[in-house]
């Protein structure tokens, strides 16, 4: 049995270790140590809790060990098996678990408040009830929101935005209802009201995410990350637990910053993303009206010839590369080019892929050294000196309309200036438009050569042609 003071200090230590875990991510060199510190912090938090409030009943110990074992095994298997292309879905799924866990912990605190030191049934402190209801509401919203985000990312559900008539009024009505219910809960501590809050929040969470289209998924995933943090912080206030409060604040602000970076990457306001309705097209030839204008088409041999004779090639990967699993073939191609004395770099747009940093992970998986991979602002000026820009599976992030056409829905979005390169090689399955449903002027330029094929097959045949 630990004293409350020692317990609180230990929780603080685990909170500090979590801060250091995030700090470690400032560079790939220190990141693994940071992750280790995070694990240590978690172990301290768990052991402290068990030492402080050691259950007297043997049955409780059995349950605890059983719960940790089941969860641990499931988690470990998932972590080992998951494909790197599926990371956005996985993260969404994990967010939903945090949300649901927050709801469950709050429910437990309501049914057995003594165990958490917040009063007795019927006599829970009003303040604890407010904190608890905020935690549970955000947790429930995170849960259904993440489930829908998961379904959209995983393809169980169309990425097309689903727009209910009058949805803003429905959402606003539900939000007001939620506030009324929270007030009612604080006054009555009724369990029925608690479950009503859960129900309303679950519905609200679903309705918030449903209208948001596939193109905005990076924002949604970051936003739900942030929500799961605030939910944890709410529960942390209820339990008076420093580790939870610190972690909740860290995760909450982390998700908020990532959402901000993603919004900026698309030149969209956060509000317009939340209101939804943007970007319904799925990648592929079916999307949009295809213009009948001549484009220059090339073969794998042409592409290989052009790149072999270049002195600098910049590769621009996008979500299409992830879908086609072309990253390994791409790295092979880069290796061949480097052996020919060609300088190869990778340019990553902030919103490439379906979550922040998604492309970087995929390239790292294919053993591309991280010091060859550059962010938009670091490499954009280099396109003018590059002989070839090799665009694979990206589209909207290279569309010059973002700079030239004020009527375009993506106007103002920062883009990679691939058109400044000597030759632009565009690997694409067909002439379809991108996620934003916008025609790309670049396809019709004189220095653009379209390579129509599946990304992976095309890169593999280029590798073959490079010999």
């Amino acid at each position, binding site marked *: 049995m630990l004293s409350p003071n020692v317990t609180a200090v230990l929780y*603080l230590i685990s909170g500090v270790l979590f801060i250091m*875990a995030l700090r470690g991510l400032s560079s790939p060199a220190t990141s693994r140590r940071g992750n280790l510190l995070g694990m240590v912090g978690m172990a301290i938090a768990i052991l402290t809790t068990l030492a402080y409030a050691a259950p007297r009943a043997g049955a409780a110990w059995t349950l605890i060990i059983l*719960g940790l074992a089941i969860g641990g095994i499931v988690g470990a298997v998932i972590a080992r098996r998951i494909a790197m292309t599926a990371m956005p879905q996985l993260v969404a799924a994990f967010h939903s678990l945090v949300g649901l866990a927050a709801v469950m912990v709050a429910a437990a605190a309501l049914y057995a408040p003594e165990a958490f030191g917040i009063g007795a049934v019927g006599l829970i402190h009003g303040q604890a009830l407010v904190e608890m209801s905020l935690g549970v509401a955000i947790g429930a919203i995170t849960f259904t929101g993440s489930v829908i985000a998961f379904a959209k990312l995983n393809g169980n559900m169309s990425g097309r935005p689903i727009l209910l008539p009058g949805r803003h009024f429905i959402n606003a009505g539900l939000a007001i209802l939620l506030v009324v219910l929270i007030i009612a809960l604080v006054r009555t501590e009724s369990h029925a009201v608690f479950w009503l809050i859960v129900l309303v929040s679950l519905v609200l969470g679903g309705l918030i995410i449903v209208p948001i289209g596939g193109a905005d998924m990076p924002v949604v995933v970051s936003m739900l990350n942030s929500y799961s943090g605030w939910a944890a912080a709410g529960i942390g*206030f209820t339990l008076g637990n420093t580790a939870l409060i610190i972690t909740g604040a860290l995760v909450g602000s982390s998700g908020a910053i990532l959402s901000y970076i993603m919004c900026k990457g698309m030149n969209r306001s956060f509000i317009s993303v939340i209101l939804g309705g943007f970007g319904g097209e799925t990648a592929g030839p079916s999307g949009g009206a295809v213009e009948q204008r001549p484009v220059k088409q090339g073969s794998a041999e042409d592409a290989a010839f052009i790149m072999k004779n270049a002195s600098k090639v910049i590769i621009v990967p996008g979500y299409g590369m992830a879908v086609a699993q072309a990253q390994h073939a791409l790295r092979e191609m880069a290796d061949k080019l480097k052996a020919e004395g060609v300088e190869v770099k990778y340019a990553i747009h902030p919103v490439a892929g379906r979550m922040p940093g998604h492309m970087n992970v995929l390239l790292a998986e294919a053993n591309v050294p991280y010091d060859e991979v550059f962010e938009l602002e670091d490499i954009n000026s280099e396109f003018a000196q590059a002989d070839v820009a090799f665009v694979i599976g990206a589209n909207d992030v290279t569309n010059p309309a973002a700079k030239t056409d004020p009527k375009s829905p993506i106007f103002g979005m920062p883009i990679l200036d691939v058109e400044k390169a000597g030759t632009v090689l565009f690997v694409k399955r067909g002439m379809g438009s991108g996620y934003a449903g916008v025609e790309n002027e670049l396809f019709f330029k004189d220095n653009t050569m379209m390579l129509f094929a599946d990304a992976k097959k095309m890169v593999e045949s280029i590798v073959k042609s490079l010999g």
Partner: protein
Amino acid sequence: MEQLTPDQAAEAARQAADAAAAAADAAREAALAAQSYADQVADGAAAVVHAATGGAIDPFVFRLSIFVLAIFVGYYVVWSVTPALHTPLMSVTNAISSVIVVGALLAVGVEAVDTISGSSGHLWAQGFGFVALVLASVNIFGGFLVTNRMLAMYKKKSG
């Protein structure tokens, strides 16, 4: 222990926040002590703050101070994360937010027989706690391990 007017409370909160920023260690001890002793701000460093502000400070204010300071820490730390590691950032924040497992552990550990009300409330609490425990454990193990797997792939140019 005297009651606070809102003004006094606000002033106390401000001072507590100042103290926390200026002397992190002292404030941290104060916050922790106050937190554990709930309404009875009695001993240790808490007395210092008590004397300085001339009144009892609700533990909520200390928690709020920690929360607000942690948001600022989070803000600066997350901006320093390299964009290349944003995906691992998400998975690791996800893993650490599973520290909510402490709540689950407390719930699972409750005495199954509720001596106060005699209702089945504790059994329910234990059930909810168990579900939360399993969910959080999936996240803890899954989150940290998948982050580790990703980070292991980031390599520098050899030679």
